[in-house]
């Protein structure tokens, strides 16, 4: 501790009594630790806490950008409870998150297992596979929009050539539009899951496998009873990151379908954008955003609970 305290000793001109006393305060043992956390605390206050508190505050007002604010208590939340479009967008968001992240996990796990051995080819593949993740989601959306184009798109053309019925087009039919945008999300973010799980696989101990082989376990049994339980924390972290990110989905959908046809791809963030940015109803949009914030927090708490809970074989 004393060595640590030494690293933050501050030399100040004599006579600066107040500053000197601050210096003395920080130079004394445990207090010096505060110096290290001040930057992150300030960051959290200005860039996280203040916006969140302001968002909660403004959600109690009838406030359109450019007009005066009027305090209306919980009316925005009452209105939200009857806003069919927003409630529908919440359901769409849940379907999107569960489908996209679930598929990404399955593909990610499978591809990571395939890539989990060393060769020159594998090194190349591991690099190439990351390319979709490097795309800005909006750019990825625009590229896929062109591929999906019902009249001129390559995907539509080959699906029709193969005799697969796509109606008027994958992105313009209500039955397939959400599936189309989920597919793009899966394309873009599966590589991230692959890399996270691959890192987990590389860090697994060899001993449990050796013990399993000695006991006569088959490859399938090794995967089921050794690999999966050991990978559990890694998988949960991957799910945590992707679920919270998928809850905020906006750019891909905005670029490909704009939330249509009808309301079939209108997720919560898109509805909030329509209300807040297009209609400038900032107060109401803040109330809607708070719901999404609560959902994100609940998802985060759920996965962290699973991660640490002994009941579910957690790390604590």
């Amino acid at each position: 501790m004393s060595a640590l305290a030494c690293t933050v000793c501050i030399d100040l001109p004599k006579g600066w009594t107040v500053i000197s006393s601050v210096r003395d305060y920080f130079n004394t043992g445990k207090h010096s630790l505060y110096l290290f956390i001040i930057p992150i605390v300030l960051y959290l206050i200005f860039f996280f806490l203040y916006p969140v508190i302001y968002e909660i505050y403004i959600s109690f007002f009838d406030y359109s950008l450019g007009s005066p604010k009027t305090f209306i208590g919980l009316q925005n939340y009452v209105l939200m409870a009857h806003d069919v479009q927003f409630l529908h967008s919440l359901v769409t968001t849940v379907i999107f998150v569960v489908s996209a992240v679930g598929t990404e996990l399955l593909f990610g796990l499978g591809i990571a297992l395939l890539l989990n051995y060393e060769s020159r080819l594998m090194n190349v593949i591991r690099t190439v596979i990351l390319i979709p993740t490097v795309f800005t989601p909006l750019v990825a959306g625009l590229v896929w929009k062109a591929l999906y184009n019902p009249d001129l798109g390559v995907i539509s053309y080959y699906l029709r050539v193969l005799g697969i019925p796509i109606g008027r087009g994958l992105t313009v039919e209500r039955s397939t539009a959400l599936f189309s945008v989920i597919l793009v999300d899966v394309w873009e973010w599966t590589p991230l899951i692959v890399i996270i799980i691959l890192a987990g696989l590389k860090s697994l101990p060899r001993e449990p496998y050796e013990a399993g082989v000695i006991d006569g376990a088959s490859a399938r049994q090794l995967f089921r009873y050794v690999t999966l339980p050991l990978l559990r924390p890694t998988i949960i972290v991957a799910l945590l990151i992707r679920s919270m990110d998928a809850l905020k989905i906006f750019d891909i959908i905005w670029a490909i379908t704009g939330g249509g046809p009808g309301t079939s791809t209108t997720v919560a963030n898109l509805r909030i954008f329509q209300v807040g940015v297009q209609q400038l109803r900032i107060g109401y949009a803040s109330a809607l955003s708070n719901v999404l914030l609560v959902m994100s927090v609940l998802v985060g708490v759920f996965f962290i609970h699973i991660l640490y809970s002994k009941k579910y074989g957690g790390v604590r």
Partner: protein
Amino acid sequence: MYLWRKLVIVVTISTLVLGGFAVLGMSQEKPYKGIVLHMACMADQYANYLKVLGQKFEQVTGAKVNVDILGYTELYQKITQDYATHTKQYDLATTDIVWTGQFAKKGWTVDLKPLILRDYEQIGVPDILPVMWSEGSWNGKQIAFPLAGYANSLIYRKDLFNNLQEKAAFKAKYGYELRPPRTMKELADIATFFTRPKQGLYGLVANGARGPAVAQDWMEYMRAFGGQIIDSNGKVVVDSPQCLAALKFFVEIFDKWAPPGAIGYWWDDRETAYRTGRAVMEFSWSIARAGYENPSISRVVGKTGMAMTPSAPSVEPQFGFGGWGIAINADISPKRQAAAWAFIKWVTSPAIQREWMLHDGAPTRLSTLLDPELNAKMPWLHTMLKLFIDGNGNYRPRVPEYSRIQDILGLRINQAITHELTPEEALSKAAAEIKAIYGQ
């Protein structure tokens, strides 16, 4: 020698004095030297040359106009946020005719009426067609100056309509001559006749993408059926029988006559469908007309006809008028406002508008539409003039609540064409939601 020296001195002094006057004169001619104005501009065909004109303006007045070209939705979002938060990002902005009421109510842009009256002669106000003033006029104010007038017309494949075999086949099937349709029934017949998916040919195309694209295109058909969103007494009548007939017809377009992807079309997609020869007819804005004759983007060069849009029986024909005004941000300093007003007068002047027309511009002046040289190059200008004379700029309600109305229609009409709702349900919901805005 002495005389020679005297002459040199006189000439030198004269040159310095005259040069000084010239410099002084130039600085008077360039009263806005050093000012850089920022303009937000709709990404329509006219935008690229407006950018060039923005730079040219510097040679005339010393003020430069930097033009940012933005998509329809982005333009609206950027300028409304700029105005509402008083951030003064833009000094000038192209302003859609339908935003007039909202911008006027909020007082976001400068009322140009006093300036127009002051510079009446210089502007040549009588030369600007009366319908153009609906781009920005609201309750006695003029919150934008007419920049680009658009006429909504029926665009059709003249080569197919004039083809003798097609004409004979059509007459045999329907019992009357194939010609540009005058009624909605004829429009439906011709659309059916020319829809041949195996040949990649579709009879009629419209915008279907959720949002302003589908809402605004449906309103063209609503007008043709004699419908209104808000009647003259301020009552919401979007669920009227006329509007319902218009929506049923609109749904048919996507079910029967349009290319498969039309449900996702924005304006540029619809135009592409026509220019690539896949669509035979469309209701379109005149700004796109010149593009059909541009071989680098069109496969229908020389094959396009332009006619007045058809209408339902017993509906007095009225033609859709739209387009863009140019407005000055009310937050900017008086000096910048003066420079911006100078730009508006210059860019809408007869000479510059004529130059602009040769580069995908749009007219507002009678003299531009009657210009012999322009008419020789663009024979469709006389049809545009007719459409402007009988043009109606109010069929899309230019009310302060327009954006919210359009948002509602953008969803409900899209739900109808994708069969998520029946036309009756869609208009019933739209009517209830629009009535809620007005407390009806």
